[in-house]
């Protein structure tokens, strides 16, 4: 165990933010070392110079000095403010994320990290990311990097990647989005930093930053699924499968007797609600209507739809359903109510007429 003692000194700088962060970190360190140095110098010097010589030492009656006190109130204050300004700047910069960045998704649950790539590819406790290497002439990174949206299915967790100098709490019931620009190829820790129960320290993972080529290859390697199912793996496709599995199509369909409103071609339009207000048909509205249908009922429809809490439709599935409904153009029909959920991956492709579709 002690054969090769490993003493961590500085963690790898694996993202653009990490570089900025370390600059700031060492700036603070320099300043406070200087400040503390002054104090320690005073302590040492005085303890040496003014150590009690004779028991009857006389000491001058010094009550203080307004000038000095001003000085050591003012100077620290100025530096503290500089910390604040600098710190706020880097905090702010890492918050604005390019819109064209592909969105990865992480859902924490006791005690694992469930990740999903933009194309629907899922991983547990591991995440493969492409490195950012497009730079302009000045060497500035032009790669948009990636978006990382996170939420939790039970308690509060915290998705932390020391090598990126980055972490954020994943809070149940909310989705928080941050951005990464990995710059250094390698494998790094993922830690859960917010205490979440017995397995807290087991809730760790690895983040693999791969070159763009390797990333593509990795995709290739893991993406082809057995059987001939035409799975394209996108969230929308996953959503469609779910749409059938949950039998949303028994009400949301294109038949005359449909008991629920039309979904295709709705995205982005304003829909009238029963209380007369107009509601924009956006992601938020879709998600809300699945979790809590009666909150905003579309005009002219009875609120007969059951609610789907997190135990019925978890965060990732909710996201997939949303993606599917989003993807429905006016032209494409909703699956009609007789269409069954496709057989699961690996099952016989053509279900024999007798065999019912697997119900959830």
């Amino acid at each position, binding site marked *: 165990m002690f054969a090769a003692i490993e003493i961590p000194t500085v963690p790898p700088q694996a993202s653009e933010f990490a570089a900025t962060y370390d600059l700031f970190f060492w700036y603070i360190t320099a300043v406070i070392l200087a400040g503390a140095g002054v104090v320690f110098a005073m302590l040492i010097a005085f303890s040496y110079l003014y150590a009690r010589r004779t028991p009857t030492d006389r000491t001058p009656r010094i009550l203080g000095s307004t000038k000095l006190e001003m000085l050591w109130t003012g100077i620290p204050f100025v530096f503290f403010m500089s910390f604040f300004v600098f710190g706020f700047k880097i905090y702010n910069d890492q*918050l604005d994320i390019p819109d064209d960045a592909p969105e990865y998704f992480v859902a924490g649950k006791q005690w694992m990290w469930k990740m999903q790539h933009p194309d629907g590819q899922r991983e547990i406790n591991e995440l493969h990311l492409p490195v950012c290497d497009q730079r302009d002439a000045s060497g500035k990174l032009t790669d948009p990097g990636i978006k990382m949206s996170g939420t939790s299915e039970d308690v509060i967790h915290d998705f932390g990647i020391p090598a990126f100098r980055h972490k*954020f709490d994943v809070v149940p019931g*909310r989705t*928080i989005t*941050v951005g990464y620009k990995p710059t250094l190829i390698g494998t790094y820790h993922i830690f859960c930093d917010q205490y979440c129960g017995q397995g807290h320290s087991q809730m760790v993972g690895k983040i693999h930053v791969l070159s763009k080529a390797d990333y593509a290859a990795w995709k290739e390697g893991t993406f082809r699924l057995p059987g001939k199912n035409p799975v394209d793996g996108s969230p929308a496709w996953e959503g469609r499968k779910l749409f059938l599995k949950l039998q949303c199509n028994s009400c949301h369909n294109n038949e005359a007797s449909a008991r629920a409103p039309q979904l295709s071609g709705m995205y982005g339009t304003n829909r009238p609600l029963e209380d007369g207000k107009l509601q924009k048909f956006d992601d938020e509205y879709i998600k809300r209507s699945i979790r809590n249908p009666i909150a905003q009922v579309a005009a002219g429809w009875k609120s007969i739809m059951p609610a789907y809490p997190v135990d019925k439709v978890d965060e990732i599935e909710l996201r997939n359903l949303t993606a599917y409904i989003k993807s429905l153009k006016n032209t494409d029909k909703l699956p009609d109510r007789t269409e069954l959920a496709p057989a699961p991956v690996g099952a016989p492709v053509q279900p024999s007429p007798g065999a019912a579709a697997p119900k959830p």
Partner: protein
Amino acid sequence: MSEVRDTIHEKDEHTVASFGSTMTTFAVLAVLAVLQLSVGFTDFGPMKILASLTITGVQVFVLSVFFMDLRQADKLTWLCAGASVFWVLIMFTFTLTDFITRHMAAY
């Protein structure tokens, strides 16, 4: 030397309010309570909460100044009352700032 030897304490010498003024205070409070109820029983829409809280504020002021004798209390007692209000305000300001602004932008 008794003057010198008297310990330091911020003096606040009280007398009790006259019977008349006590009854007057009560009358005022009762009227305010009636007002409070009538506001409660009518529909002002969003103004309702403002109106009723204003009345409550007046009630609390009257009660504390006359019944709780802030009227003749010393600075220190006023400080207590003031401090409690101030700290409650601190709590409300920050917490509610979060409740109101979180949806605009959160980390």
